[in-house]
């Protein structure tokens, strides 16, 4: 190899080396700069903006899904479901996947969602808004709640077969994917539940109903009173989703299952409730009152076995009924009780030893002038014993017992029987009733004579039947019991409610005497022969109160019969009340307007069927079969 000559050659060599070094330094500088920039970006992304990007990443993948609890059931005492929750769907739409084809989707879905397509078109119109300098398109539009699973299946079929009038096989893959997404993903669902009442109108006033558009919150009845127990507690699941919104189960962070609502087991017996409602409806058809109510109570415990008011409603579709039908008149309406209230004054008189059953009172042949007012009986009676005052339902006799008692004593017994205060039944809307204090201006001179006959006080039907039940329960007033227990969804007992005695209102001796008097009412001599039962001894009392309109008594009546049986070992106490029954029945026959003839037959039918249903042992012995056989032969008649 020939070396370059002298200094010139060395210079050329040095220049080449310098150039090489320069290139090397430039390259190294460039790479260092690039690496520095990358390093800076790395630090910027991973450290400086870490929190922002972590948040964005989590927004893209991490989801917190609410897990809704199932609302508890309402069951009757035998476990027959009266209110249950059925799975349903919220139909939602993602308009961002529909482009300008949303009117076609709206037209297809409108009949299935039972709405008009103009409304759906408006809902499905894509809407845009700016958020942090980004354009967003609506992706979540709820179209309808409480949609049944069958309807959702039909919607899925409709969407899958939806035609847009184009030959999609000739489109490019991007357009084909658009149509596929539109069919498969633009309409989706969320979990929901519907409250269903399988018995329809059965015990509707007891059960109440829920607000289907607001998380199934109870609005009335047990649904309202026990809403907290029935609703349960929601759970949640914090998890991650992939790009196709499928859950990545291994990345679940928190998974808290919902706690389903407790089941409320009522003291109501669906069989008895059905008997009551059927017979009440028959009575309503016959006598055409504004309303009819019935309560059936087990006196020894205060358990309410049936509670019905007509007109009633179907909680599955409350909107179809007038507001008037939604009211539980048994606890929400107060009225003068009429003669059924005589049990209070007579019990008081007997209990205070102011009268005995054999004491006699002059009933003035149906007229009695007291404190400037004439009081009347429905028939002219002369001297009547206390027992006969009950049998014949003499107003004047009861008034005279009340006068003998004095106003303080009378008021004390009214209070002790539970009038003027809520009974404590676990239903919303209960009224106190009206009982004026003896010191008040409303307690006038004539009150002492009026109140014993059931005027000048206003009570609820429930207060009245609980007062009668106190007599049937050996003189102990019980708190009405509508809920027997709360159960876990699996049936495990959560809370057991016990019968609760309020107070003793009369001694057992007084009660025995009262029952003897009350036994005479459903007899030929009494006011309610129609309430007589062939196989059971009935003790009861009729009531016929004139209604008040604008401060004056009018020729409209509030009739009732409250009775219990078997009288010496009471197992059922039944109250039947009708508001303004017609004088003539549905066939045009004049029946009068008294509790005995209007409500007595309804009581009779309910009591007989209920006794049969409960297989109660008769306390009136049937004639022996031999006697029956003999009676059947002609010779026996001789």
């Amino acid at each position, binding site marked *: 190899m020939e070396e370059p000559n002298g200094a010139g050659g060395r210079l050329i060599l040095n220049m080449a080396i310098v150039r090489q070094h320069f290139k090397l330094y430039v390259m190294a500088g460039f790479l260092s700069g690039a690496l520095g920039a990358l390093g800076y970006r790395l630090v910027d992304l991973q450290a400086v903006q870490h929190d922002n990007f972590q948040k964005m990443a989590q927004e893209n993948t991490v989801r917190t899904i609410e897990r809704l609890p199932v609302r508890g059931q309402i069951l009757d005492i035998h476990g027959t479901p009266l209110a249950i929750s059925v799975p349903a769907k919220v139909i939602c739409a993602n308009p961002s996947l529909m482009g300008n084809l949303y009117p076609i989707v709206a037209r297809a879905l409108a009949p299935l969602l039972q709405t008009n397509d103009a409304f759906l078109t408006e809902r499905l119109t894509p809407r845009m808004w700016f958020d942090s300098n980004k354009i967003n398109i609506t992706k979540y539009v709820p179209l309808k709640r409480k949609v049944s699973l069958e309807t959702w299946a039909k919607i899925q079929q409709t969407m899958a077969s939806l035609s847009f009038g184009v030959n999609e096989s000739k489109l490019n893959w991007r357009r084909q994917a658009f149509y596929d997404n539109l069919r498969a993903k633009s309409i989706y669902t969320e979990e929901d539940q519907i409250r269903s009442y399988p018995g329809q109108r059965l015990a509707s006033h007891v059960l109440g109903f829920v607000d289907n558009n607001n998380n199934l919150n109870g609005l009335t009845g047990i649904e309202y009173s026990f809403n907290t127990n029935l609703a349960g507690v929601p759970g949640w699941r914090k998890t991650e989703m992939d790009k196709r919104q499928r859950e990545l189960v291994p990345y679940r962070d928190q998974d808290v299952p919902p706690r389903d609502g407790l089941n409320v087991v009522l003291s109501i017996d669906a069989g008895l409730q059905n008997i009551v409602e059927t017979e009440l409806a028959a009575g309503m058809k016959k006598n055409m009152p504004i309303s009819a109510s019935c309560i059936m109570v087990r006196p020894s415990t205060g358990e309410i076995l049936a509670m019905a008011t007509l007109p009633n409603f179907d909680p599955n579709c409350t909107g179809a009924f007038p507001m008037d039908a939604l009211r539980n008149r048994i606890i929400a309406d107060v009225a003068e009780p009429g003669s059924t209230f005589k049990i209070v004054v007579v019990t008081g008189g007997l209990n205070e030893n102011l009268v005995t059953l054999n004491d006699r009172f002059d009933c003035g042949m149906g007229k009695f002038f007291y404190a400037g007012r004439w009081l009347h009986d429905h028939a002219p009676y002369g001297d009547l014993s206390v027992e006969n005052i009950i049998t014949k339902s003499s107003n004047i006799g009861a008034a005279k017992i009340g006068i003998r008692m004095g106003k303080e004593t009378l008021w004390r017994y009214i209070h002790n029987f539970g009038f003027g205060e809520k009974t404590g039944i676990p239903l919303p809307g209960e009224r106190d009733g009206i009982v004026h204090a003896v010191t008040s201006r409303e307690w006038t001179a004539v009150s002492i004579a009026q109140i014993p006959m059931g005027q000048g006080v206003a009570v609820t039907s429930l207060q009245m039947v609980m007062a009668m039940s106190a007599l049937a329960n050996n003189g102990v007033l019980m708190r009405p019991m509508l809920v027997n227990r709360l159960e876990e969804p699996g049936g495990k007992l959560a809370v057991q409610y016990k019968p609760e005695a309020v107070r003793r209102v009369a001694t057992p001796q007084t009660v025995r005497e009262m029952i003897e008097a009350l036994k005479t009412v459903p007899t030929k001599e009494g006011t309610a022969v129609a309430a007589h039962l*062939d196989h059971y001894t009935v003790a009861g009392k009729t009531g016929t109160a004139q209604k008040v309109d604008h401060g004056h008594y009018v020729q409209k009546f509030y009739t009732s019969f409250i009775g219990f049986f078997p009288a010496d070992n009471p197992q059922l106490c039944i109250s039947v009340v009708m508001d303004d029954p017609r004088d003539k029945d549905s066939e045009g026959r004049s029946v009068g307007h008294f509790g005995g003839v209007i409500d007595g037959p309804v009581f009779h039918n309910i009591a007989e069927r209920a006794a049969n249903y409960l297989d109660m042992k008769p*306390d009136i012995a049937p004639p022996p079969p031999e006697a029956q056989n003999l009676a059947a032969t002609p010779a026996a008649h001789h």
Partner: protein
Amino acid sequence: MARNRKNESNLRVAPILLTVFLCTILAGLGVGYVWYKNQIDVLGRQIKARETRLAELQRDNRMRREQLATLCSPVALDARVKKLNLGLEPPALGQIVRLIDAPDYDRSAQPQPQLAPQARPAPPVKVALAARKN
């Protein structure tokens, strides 16, 4: 020299085996890790599928419960009996004759029945049209 060569050859095999062993371990760990991750994913999908199935079954169960409740409702049963004209109804009280078995029947423990004027206490009856439990 030959001895040295032999020693050198032994020295070369050992690192190779060690390397192969370590590579195998590393590869095994890698494959195991991937398999493990894959298993997690597969099991996750299976869990999800089973959860979905369970939710479906629970939903079906609730639907069936609702159907059963509707069918068991006294209102529905009454309507069905009337619709089919079956004539089914409980026996009237007058149609029931109760058997009174002497050993079980403690007359003194029972409340004294109020007798109708024409009726007299019936002797224990052994023949019955229908017997019902009390």
